[in-house]
């Protein structure tokens, strides 16, 4: 992708202050935010990340992080998915049953 040159005269500024935007990836932003500027401030790891309304099942950020890490290894070694591969997600919102 190429950087686009924008004429400064065509930029309309918001009346709100600029917000810092951490220069990182989405996994680090959600689970390691304190390592990348901590904005928005990271919450406690034991707070609830998701609640499934029908079943009441809950998962905390630390439990979710562990599950994500295990699955990333599983995707790599079990499915041979590599960095840069595209995976089509063809499914509804899902909670383990």
């Amino acid at each position, binding site marked *: 992708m190429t950087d686009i040159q924008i004429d400064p005269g065509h930029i309309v500024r918001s009346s709100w202050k600029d917000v810092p*935007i951490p220069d990182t990836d989405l*996994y680090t932003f959600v689970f390691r935010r304190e390592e990348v500027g901590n904005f928005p401030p990271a919450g406690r790891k034991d707070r609830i*990340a998701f*609640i499934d309304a029908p079943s009441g099942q809950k998962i905390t950020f630390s439990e979710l992080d562990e599950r994500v890490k295990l*699955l990333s290894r599983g995707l790599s*070694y079990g499915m041979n998915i590599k960095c840069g*591969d595209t*995976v089509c997600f063809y*499914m509804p919102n899902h909670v*383990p049953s």
Partner: protein
Amino acid sequence: MDYPTALWAGFRLGAVPSCANPIYTPHELVHQLKLSKSQFILTHPTFIKSALEAAGQVGIPESRIFLVEKSEKLNFVNVPDLIEMGRTAPEIIPLKLSPGESKRRVALLNFSSGTSGLPKGVLISHSNVIANVCQMYALESSGTDGTACNGCLPFFHSNTDPYFH
């Protein structure tokens, strides 16, 4: 909660999720598979028939289709088994972006419903989603910790990307 689990596992690996509407017909799914050049399909047992039909049309082998949950009747790799495998598999090298790369690196390959004509692919960078979250935090941060938000949007929809980050 394995839809978001799989998204973040993909991000950690550097893979690019391309989220499709599960009620797409095989014909509609083929369009997205082709444009996104998807090599893998993650689906639910309910939608395996359409997934297989579309995969056959674009040449994705059955070995590259996996299920978000176990199924007695279907012999496919599934996410719970992959999570178990992750307990003994070696650690991977997680995605590490160079300075400034978050603005260029594609995180998600979403499809717009395409006001006119067929759906169009939209390159969403890591920074795109992070910027949305930071802007929402700046405007709506009062009482966020401990507040439950009602997540009624479908996770496949691009509207949802910033909300669960």
